[in-house]
């Protein structure tokens, strides 16, 4: 610190000639460009400060040639540091961001990631929307964004799908930490408690290279609530109760902040639901019990700071009992029965099959501002993920998990950001990561994902150049190195049937009975990059164009899968010969963010070489009967489509909101559609709001999900001993289109003097419509959720 001051002073001294320069500027709101009066501009290193006038203008006199750091603050905005190099002849425009909470404090955020990216569409879910969905999952909340859908296993295991892509292709950043929670599996939901988030953003592409180069689908950024620099102690609690599942959630947080920059937050959530219900029957064994807590302590000075963060997440969720199947014949019987084959009375207890996942995340981050340069940040994070899956088993083995995976990850990252110039910003950094997966042998079931060690290293650089007030250019490059060292027992029969003994004799270590121990070692060199431009028109129209190249190494599931996947009643086979996926994504975004009619239209084209997907490839006989074999394959894929959203201000009280998303995916080698592409989705809502009447908001939403008419025919014919006939197992025909209505209302009341009580009522599926969703893996066996009435109380204190 002291060193830093000396540095600064020396810098000042050397520029101490020619000290009669003037600087004229204006401070405006970042969002709507309204002038901010009463903003304070302090010149760091000098004792000078000025305040803006009624129109936001200010003037500084007697400055020397050279660089200055201006600290700009406003009672309702985040404090911002601005670098300016004198002489500066034009008007310096400084944009401040209003903070969302009504707390009249000055906020400082020591993250380089305020502007994630300038030339690719970024959609944000506000704190308010997150609070309304307090009872739901991260995946449910993300569906509010056009172009984001979800891949479900029932209603509690919800994975985000961005413009048709999911799992390893969607990166989830939780408070600056890339989630390592076995995201490769389709029935592995993100281990993030929605209630820890202050805001959630989605970048529908790989352009934010500081987070990774493999975001073929996109990036989800879960950011904690902003910390304000003022002596204050505040908190909030949200309690929800829901009729469907007959349960609810309670979440509370308490934050202490201080003028000196010290802050701390504790937060916790409990969620408990019993069996959910479709309009006509109980979905037996679909309850959930979730516990989450987080702790955040830090110091946020203008020039330096640190943060320590820990979060724990545990979720136990039942998988629909009727979806547990012995073989393809059972599957055929279940498919052809309009109701699930197992319907029991409502219960809160969660039996097998079920999953129980825990995730620990700890991080420490420090940052330091460097004068005339920008900022350096360093972060270490540790994650431990334990995934237990329990199956319906014989011989009292139900208490022993069938899957027991422990994934441990250490990451060290250093990021330099350069913001000393108004027109040019850059950041660059390095990342080192070590990951170990341990599959417990106590399960008595062969490991689907083997033991492995993985080493990753990355280096990246990103730059943004503001040519003038209307043009911005952006470019970035990233290189990732992955080294994977696994130990896996293969069945000798499979090892030889796939000719691995010819391709990979060097991996063979030894033989135990009918199994062969192998040591697959792979190195991947991945290059990724981005190039984009944004142009601001008059009248607040904006056009962004971006190209991004993402390169993703195959994940352990795609490489090593080999055996029966019980929850899907199918045999899944990976391939050791896979190379990396390379995605070229072109996206445009044309938007208008102010005025009576606001909209964004976002067309995209994603051309993916070596796209890895899973597809049925035959039938295998076993003593348990026949099974469909699903093989991972590589092809060249093309995804294209567009997202649209708009808001029409009808008058001061009524808004009309429309969203539409369309994505088409094709296998270019076979000219067939890709499997599991989200169907077109249209949502229209009428919003009434009245600030004068207790901040009343009433929203009526209509959601129409089209039928997916483009799908590959993956049906197989199979001889079934029970009927003594050959039958088609139809797992490819998508369900019909459906239309749901939702109602949401909330109002605020002043209680106990200073506190605010918000009361909200949500009715999902207002007309109790029966429907099945193409992207719900349990759609073959049961209808989706029926009507759900949720009552929500939130108190701020």
């Amino acid at each position: 610190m002291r060193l830093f001051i000396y540095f600064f002073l020396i810098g000042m001294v050397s520029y101490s000639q020619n000290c009669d320069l003037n600087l004229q500027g204006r401070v405006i709101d970042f969002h709507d460009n309204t002038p901010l009066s009463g903003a304070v501009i302090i010149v760091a290193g000098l004792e000078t400060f000025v305040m803006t006038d009624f129109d936001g203008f200010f003037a500084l006199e007697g400055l020397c040639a050279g660089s200055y750091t201006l600290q700009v603050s406003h009672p309702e905005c985040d404090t911002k540091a601005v670098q300016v190099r004198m002489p500066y002849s034009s008007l310096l425009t400084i944009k401040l961001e209003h903070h969302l909470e009504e707390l009249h404090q000055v906020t400082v955020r020591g993250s380089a990631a305020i502007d994630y990216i300038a030339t690719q569409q970024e959609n944000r879910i506000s704190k308010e929307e997150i609070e309304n969905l307090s009872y739901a999952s991260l995946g449910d909340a993300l569906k509010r964004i056009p172009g984001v859908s979800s891949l479900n296993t029932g209603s509690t295991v919800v994975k985000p799908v961005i413009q048709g892509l999911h799992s390893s292709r969607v990166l989830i950043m939780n408070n600056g930490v890339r989630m390592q929670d076995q995201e490769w599996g389709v029935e592995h939901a993100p281990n993030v408690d929605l209630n820890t988030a202050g805001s959630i953003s989605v970048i529908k592409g790989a352009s934010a290279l500081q987070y990774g180069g493999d975001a073929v689908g996109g990036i989800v950024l879960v950011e904690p609530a902003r910390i304000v620099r003022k002596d204050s102690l505040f908190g909030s609690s949200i309690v929800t109760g829901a009729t469907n599942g007959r349960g609810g959630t309670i979440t509370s947080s308490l934050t202490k902040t201080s003028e000196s920059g010290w802050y701390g937050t504790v937060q916790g959530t409990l969620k408990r639901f019993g069996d959910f219900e479709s309009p006509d029957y109980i979905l037996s064994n679909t309850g959930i019990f979730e516990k989450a807590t987080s702790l955040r302590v830090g110091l946020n000075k203008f020039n330096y700071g640190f943060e320590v963060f820990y979060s724990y997440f545990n979720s136990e969720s039942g998988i629909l009992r009727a979806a547990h199947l012995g073989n393809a014949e059972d599957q055929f019987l279940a498919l052809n029965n309009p109701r699930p084959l197992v319907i029991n009375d409502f219960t809160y207890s969660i039996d097998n099959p079920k999953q129980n996942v825990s995730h620990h995340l700890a991080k420490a981050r420090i940052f330091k501002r460097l004068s005339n340069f920008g900022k350096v940040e360093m972060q270490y994070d540790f994650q431990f993920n334990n995934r237990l899956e329990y199956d319906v088993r014989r011989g009292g083995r139900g208490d022993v998990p069938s899957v027991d995976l422990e994934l441990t990850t250490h990451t060290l990252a250093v990021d330099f950001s350069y913001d000393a110039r108004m027109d040019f910003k850059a950041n660059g950094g390095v990342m080192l990561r070590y990951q170990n997966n341990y599959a417990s042998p106590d399960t008595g079931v062969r490991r689907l994902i083997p033991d492995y060690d993985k080493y990753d290293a990355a280096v990246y650089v990103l730059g943004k150049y503001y040519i003038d007030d209307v043009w911005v250019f952006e470019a970035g490059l990233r290189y990732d190195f992955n080294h994977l060292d696994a130990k896996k027992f293969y069945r000798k029969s499979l090892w030889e049937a796939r000719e691995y003994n010819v391709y990979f004799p060097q991996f063979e270590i030894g033989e135990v009975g009918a199994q062969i121990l192998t040591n697959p070692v792979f190195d991947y060199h991945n290059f990724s990059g981005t190039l984009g431009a944004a142009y601001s028109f008059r009248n607040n129209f904006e056009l962004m164009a971006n190209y991004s190249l993402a390169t993703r190494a195959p994940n352990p599931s795609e490489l090593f899968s080999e055996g029966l996947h019980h929850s899907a009643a199918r045999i899944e086979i990976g391939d050791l010969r896979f190379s990396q996926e390379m995605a070229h994504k072109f996206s445009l975004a044309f938007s208008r963010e102010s005025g009576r009619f606001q909209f964004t239209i976002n067309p995209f084209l994603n051309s993916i070489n070596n796209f890895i997907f899973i597809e049925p490839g035959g039938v295998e006989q076993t003593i348990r009967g026949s099974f469909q074999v699903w093989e991972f394959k590589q092809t060249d894929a093309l995804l294209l489509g567009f997202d649209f959203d708009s808001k029409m201000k009808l008058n001061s009280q009524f808004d009309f909101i429309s969203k539409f998303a369309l994505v088409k995916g094709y296998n270019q080698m076979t000219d067939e559609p890709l499997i599991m592409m989200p169907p077109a989705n249209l949502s229209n809502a009428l919003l009434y709001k009245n600030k004068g009447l207790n901040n009343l908001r009433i929203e009526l939403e209509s959601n129409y999900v089209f039928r997916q008419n483009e799908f590959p025919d993956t049906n197989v014919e199979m001889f079934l001993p029970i009927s003594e006939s050959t039958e088609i197992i139809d797992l490819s025909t998508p369900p019909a289109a459906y239309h749901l209505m939702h109602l949401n209302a909330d109002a605020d009341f002043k209680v106990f003097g200073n506190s605010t009580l918000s009361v909200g009522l949500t009715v999902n599926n207002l007309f109790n419509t029966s429907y099945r969703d193409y992207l719900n893996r349990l759609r073959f066996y049961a209808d989706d959720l029926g009507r759900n009435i949720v009552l929500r109380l939130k108190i701020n204190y």
Partner: protein
Amino acid sequence: MKNLRLLAILFTTTLFLTSCSSDDDVAPIVEEEVITTLKVTLVGGGNTIMLEYRDLDPDGPTPPTITVSSPLMANTNYVASMTLLNELENPAEDMTIEIEEEADEHQFFYLTGTGLNISNLTYLDFDGDGKPLGLSFSFDTGDASQGDFTIILRHEPNKDAPGVSEGNIANAGGDTDISATFPLVIQ
């Protein structure tokens, strides 16, 4: 700066520690729950016939092997008893015991394919509630014929559903643990 160094040390030590432990040998998993082999002993007309359905590569690519020691005699009463083995274990484990212990959660069903003259299929063993289990059963052969005979074991069937106690699988539900089809010849 001191903090930085401390962090770096912490990071490298954890790296070192974890990589040490992961170098341990990976233990092979012997699947204890798997049934690889179904043996059916048919006794009738003074002869013993052995049927065997063997799948040593459960979800691997090799198909099961099916053996029938000899044709069945026409117009004969046969008593059948079954043994289930897990031959992945050494010595092979008798899985019949597990099924007997959980008799109330299991039931066998027998399906006679078109053309095969088998009748009077009768359960000879029962669970604690007097519902059929089916590790042993009897049947009568008719005139010379041939066709498929399938033995299915269901886990957690609904034994109270209509017809299930009489051996009708239609309403049984549950998950299939065994589905073994034997081509039989009656002569």
